[in-house]
Structures are given as C-alpha cells and as structure tokens.
C-alpha cells in the first residue's frame, strides 16, 4: 500500500473544519479493508503515529494530525451490499462512504455491479422509503467518522445517535488485524468483557467526568463502546447500518417569537407535552435559535447560496424554535400540531409567524437553515482571524441536564452579555445540548471566552452533564478542559485506550493530557 508525502500536494489534509492545523509526514489512501490493514501493520512496525481521517468535517479537530501518518478513508467509498433479517434491512458500506451517498442510495436504491444476486434482487424489492434514521446535519461526513464521533442527528431527541443504528463493524486495530464485531457478540457483564483479541476490559468505576466516550458499563455492547471512540481505538473499515422505514408523516415547523423568554416558555411547554402524551406522534427535534443567530441570518444570507432562497425571517422575531414531529397516523399528528399551536399562541406567538412544512422535500429548506447557521459562524470566525491570528473557533458542545435547558440558556446569555463578546446560542433545547458560539475580536476577548467556557464546563460537570455532547473531544477539548476532568476518569480513559491501542498508535496527543 503506497504512502505519499503530505507536502506539498496534501497540505489541506492537515486541517479540518475545527480550523485547527497540524502536520504529518505521509498520507495513505487505502481503498479497502485489506489495504487498510496493510498500511496499519506497516505503520505499527515503524512505530508511526496514525491519524485517521474521513471527510474532515469534525468540529473538534479529531482529524488533525500531529506528525506521523495520515490514513484517509476517502477512497473507501463503496456501498457493499444489502441484507434483510426479520424484516429489517441492513446496508453494508465502507467507512469512507458519506452520509450524502447513503441518502442518495436510499432515495434511489441501485445495487453495485459486484453485489451478490441476492443483494441485487433485495435492493429491487426494497425500493425507496427506507432511511438511515439518525440524520446528522453534516451530510458530507463519512459514515466511519459519524460512527467514530457517535454523531447525533437532527432527530436525536427521538432517536439517539449514529452508534445505535450500526449493527456490525469491520474493525481494524492498531496492529492491522481485522475483526468483524456484531452487536450482541460482545457485551459487558458486571465485571467487564473479553474483547475480540482476547484482552479483557473492566467496566468503569469512576464518574463519567463529562466525557461520553470509552466508558464501559454493565450491559453495554462493544459496538456502542467503539461508537464515539474518535479514531483513538482503531479504524472502521466497514459498517452495517440498520435501516428503518420512513415515518409515514413528518412535519417541520419553525415557530418565531418576539422574545427569548417566550421561546423558552414554549420549549418548556413542549417538554411537558412530550412526557404527558402517550400518542404515536413523536417529537423528534426541538431546536432553538436565539435572537443574535437570527440577526446573523438576516445579515449574512446574501453571501450564502444555501440560504439565499429562504424566505425573509419575520421582522419582529427575536428567537425561534424548529420542531419536528413524526408519526404513522396523519390524524394524530394534526391533533398534536393543533395542540402545539395553542401552546404557541399561549406563549405569545402568532400563527403568521410560523413556517410549516410537511414531508422531507418541503422540510429541506429548514434543514439548510440548521446547517447554514454553524457554517455562517465559521465564515465570521475566518474573517476575524484575518484581523487577529490568535482568534480561533470558540464553541461549546455541552450537554447539561435535560430539564434545565432554559436555565442554561439564560446563563449563557447573561454571561455573554456581561463579557461584551458577540455570541450566538442555538441547539437542542430539550436535551440541553446548546451550542454557544463566540466571536472574540482580539486576543483579550479570546481569553475572556476561554474563561467563560471553562466556567460553564465546571457547571456542566457539577450538574452531571457532558462537556463533549456531540462533536467529540478531538484535539480541541482535552487541553481546554483537561484540568476540569476528574483524575480518576482520566486514568480510566488512559487504561481503556491502552487495552485497545497498546502502543498508543492513535492517541499520542491524548496521552500527554491524560
């Protein structure tokens, strides 16, 4: 398996969407599991540090190399086959296949030339109407990358992360061994679990310490442990994705409010509604956008093709909630919508300040909004960095206790206002997974931002939340929060990594912190 020097042709592979930059000497582009294993085995022999990359869309710098070898999975992009078991379809893909590819395939399933006849006819039979349920907004990300960060989709409130929809893995470890790991085969009991290579991993006996990754507990499946392992435990050569039929009905509604308080009040009502109702209408997303974010959309849409064709936001809107409702029965959904509308109006909303879409095609435009917002902020950060090199993307990925979304939101806004830094708050309000993006204009403000983030992180930890909610720890967050994470958890993490990657081939930078 050929390796190429990184400089000068592959310089861009030293960075990712986090805007962090690193260095590496060589890069390899394996096309299949065998080549991947080959390149890993060779790297192990030479004791090279390895950084695995998908589409480099991560926000935490997980794909940024620190010397050694980059393994890019971008050429492992084949959809390998389809099978059916107990009425459920499973799609097998290489780790470098993008979510976009998966969506495109599911829209118009077309079997690969080298598929088995059985898979081909199954593909015909399946037709369209199946979906990969967790639907992360970053569709250009690879499936391997999404699994490795256990990305959460827009519908995470209803359905959870990517990991739970992966049935089986072809796993390449640091030594270059390939192992098929299927759900149900390796499950942690009260003590631990014997891993495929024969080593034994005990369950964690430390607090979670704000990090969701590599935290084995009783009853956990190894597949779920590896989900979110961020390329530090091995590389995903292939995955088998569990598909689900599209829900018969989906509604996406953007509710606009004059004030933040009204939006947060409505969110609280929705949370109550959600636990009270035992109907089949599912609230699969409730996303919040604050006034600053809406203002930025108004200001910047001209510069962004994806948002240019979106309707003007209501002029009075000072906050918005995007609510997705899904279910099988149209009547139930309409009933739910009616109830939501009442709550909306009770919270001071006006029907004419709501945007309603039914079905995935109509909802697409709202998806561009949720995807466009972080992109817009990145553009702003880049512009600021032109002025001051010390500035970098400063965003939180905290997940506080679910019921306290409004309280956290108010805290973020209060602190941002007090700091004088420009800031934007948006995200999954019912899960208290709000993204706070800050735009420091100079080094002093950057410092202020760091301080604020650390203070918030402490609060999150105190409350038993996560400091890396959905975009992973990557290269960004360990140094930032290293002091806050309990020593016992660091030790557990380090030991767990050592079991999966004894030579520290994948986790050089983490070791320094741990």
């Amino acid at each position, binding site marked *: 398996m050929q390796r190429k020097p990184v400089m000068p042709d592959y310089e861009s592979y030293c960075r990712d969407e986090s805007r962090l930059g690193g260095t590496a000497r060589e890069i390899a582009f394996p096309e299949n599991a065998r080549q991947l294993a080959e390149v890993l085995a060779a790297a192990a022999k030479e004791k090279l540090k390895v950084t695995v990359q998908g589409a480099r869309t991560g926000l935490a710098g997980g794909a940024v190399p620190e010397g050694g070898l980059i393994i890019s999975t971008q050429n492992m992009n084949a959809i390998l086959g389809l099978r059916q078991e107990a009425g459920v379809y499973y799609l097998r893909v290489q780790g470098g296949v993008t979510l976009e590819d998966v969506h495109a395939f599911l829209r118009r399933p077309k079997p690969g030339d080298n598929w088995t006849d059985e898979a081909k006819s199954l593909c015909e039979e399946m037709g369209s109407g199946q979906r990969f349920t967790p639907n992360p907004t970053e569709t250009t990300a690879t499936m391997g990358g999404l699994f490795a960060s256990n990305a959460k989709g827009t519908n995470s409130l209803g359905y959870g992360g990517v990991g739970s929809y992966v049935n089986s893995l072809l796993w390449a470890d640091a030594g270059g061994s390939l192992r098929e790991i299927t759900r149900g085969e390796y499950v942690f009991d009260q003590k631990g679990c014997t891993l495929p290579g024969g080593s034994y991993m005990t369950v964690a006996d430390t607090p979670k310490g704000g990090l969701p990754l590599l935290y084995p507990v009783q009853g956990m499946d190894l597949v779920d442990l590896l989900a979110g392992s961020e390329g530090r435990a091995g590389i995903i050569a292939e995955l088998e994705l569990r598909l689900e039929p599209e829900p018969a009905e989906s509604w996406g509604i953007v509710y606009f409010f004059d004030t933040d308080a009204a939006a947060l009040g409505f969110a609280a009502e929705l949370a109550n509604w959600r636990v009270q109702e035992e109907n089949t209408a599912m609230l699969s997303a409730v996303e919040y956008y604050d006034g600053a974010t809406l203002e930025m959309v108004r200001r910047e849409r001209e510069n962004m093709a994806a948002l240019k064709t979106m*309707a*003007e936001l209501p002029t009075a809107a000072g906050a918005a909630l995007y609510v997705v409702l899904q279910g099988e029965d149209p009547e139930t959904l309409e009933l739910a919508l009616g109830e939501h509308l009442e709550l909306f109006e009770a919270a001071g909303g006006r029907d004419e300040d*709501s*945007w*309603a879409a039914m079905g995935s095609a109509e909802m697409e*435009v709202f998806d561009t909004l949720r995807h466009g917002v972080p992109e817009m902020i990145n553009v702003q950060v880049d512009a600021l960095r032109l002025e001051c090199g010390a500035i970098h993307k400063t965003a939180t990925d905290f997940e506080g206790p679910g019921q306290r979304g409004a309280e956290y939101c108010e805290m973020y806004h209060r602190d941002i206002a007090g700091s004088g830094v420009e800031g934007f708050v948006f995200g999954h309000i019912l899960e208290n997974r709000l993204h706070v993006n800050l735009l420091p204009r100079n080094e002093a403000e950057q410092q202020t931002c760091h301080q604020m983030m650390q203070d918030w992180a402490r609060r999150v930890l105190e409350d038993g939340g996560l400091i890396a909610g959905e975009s992973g720890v990557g290269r960004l967050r360990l140094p930032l929060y290293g002091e806050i994470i309990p020593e016992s958890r660091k030790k557990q993490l380090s030991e767990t990594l050592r079991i999966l990657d004894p030579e520290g081939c994948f986790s050089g930078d983490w070791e320094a912190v741990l």
Partner: protein
Amino acid sequence: MRILVCVKQVPDTTEIRIDPETHSMIRTGVPSVLNIFDRYAMEVALRLREQAGEGHITVLSMGPAQAEAVLRECLALGADAAYLATDRAFGGADTLATSYVLAQAIRVIGDFDLVLCGKQAIDGDTAQVGPEIAQHLGWPQVTNAAELTLQGDEYLAKRETDDGYEMLLLPPPGVVTVTKPPFEPRYPSVKGKLAAKRAEIHILSTENLPLDTAKAGLKGSPTRVRRTYTPAVKTGGVKVEGLPPRESVAGLLEFLQEKVPGEA
C-alpha cells in the same frame, strides 16, 4: 379585489437525471413541485391583497388529479378558493389548447380584476400560456413583471426588459406574468397548512365548463411533438498536459476566441 393565480405542477427539473445507457430522461422518483414562477405569482397576489387590505385569491390549475397538491400548497399560503381543470379531453394540450381551457375556466369562475401567472413553467419554459390567456380573454397584459403594486384603480408593474425595467400601468381586468421578484416567497403557517389539507378543491371538466372540445386537449393543439431526444452530454473538454506555458496559453486563447467571441 379579485385575483386569480394560474399554477402548474411540474417535475422538479433539478432532480432530473439522464440514464447514461439509454440516454433517456429518468422521470421515476422525480418529485412534483409547484412551478417556481407560479410560487412567485402567488406571493405577488398575497402582497397585493395585503396592500389593498382586502381581496379574494383564487388559484386555478389544469392537470391530472394529483395536481391538487400544488393547489393545496397555494391554499396553505392563503388562497381562498381552488379550482382544478381536469379531464381526459384536456390531455396532450399545447399552449394554445391549455390557455383556451384556462381562459374558459376564468370566465366561468368569473369576475376577476387580475389574472397572475408565473412567467413560464420550468418544464416547458414556453412563457406562452399567460399571454395566450390574455388574448383569449381580450385583456391587456404585462409580461415578465418582477414587482406589482396597486396604484389607485390600476396596477403598477415593474417589468424586466432587455434593457432594464419599464414601469407600466395596467388597468383592470388584466393579465400579469411574474418573474423572480426581489423578495423570496413566504412559507405557509401552521394554521394555513392544516386548513389547506381539508379545503375543498373545485373540479372543472367538460361537464361543467362551456367548451368547444375541438379546441381543447390534443385535438385543439396546432403543434405536435415529432421527436424528443437528450442533447449530447458534455464530454470532458480539452486537457493540455506537459506543454510549456507559452504553448498551452496560446492554445487556450485560441480556444476562447472561438468559444467565447469577444473575449481575449
């Protein structure tokens, strides 16, 4: 003020793919949508009604039964009534036969101050149905209007021309075709969307429209499609490799002179 908006359901042309083997258009799985220019026309109608502080908006479409979907979209946006002209006898119509049926429908529904159409439908791109309706009705027209407002008893249109804009006053009743306005069309509200699901769509056919059936559908169409084919796919262009810059650049400029006259 009574406004009628003509709308059409079209395949989403951005989703159309060409089968690389048969070179034919793949239409299965291509979603049907409200023609974008008709959406603009609908938005213009809503704004006129807002400006006037009163008004009734009717939407009209000709097409198969499933074209009902785009009428419901318009109802959700705020249209007050919807009519679908659907009949086997209307099938295979060219623009003349289509505009004839629509004009007859407009006469029957009755009493409009303004008929709005999208500038053109994105499947056929003819831009003919609007003016032909106007001719059948004997009404004045403004085509290619980017904006339309009320001015006294008349409509003031900003018409995009080849040289810029013309501001035109149009007395009612008249026909206006709408191009991309300087604003984006709105989305329906929750109430609008829910109400539209239950609203009645009035069906017009040869049974309740006064028609000379010889003027409708394929029979009433002077034009025929003799053949369709997919245009030659754009093959990869010239790629020059391993030449010194002086030669490759000279080659490029020669190419540009032919391909993009007036440049270089």
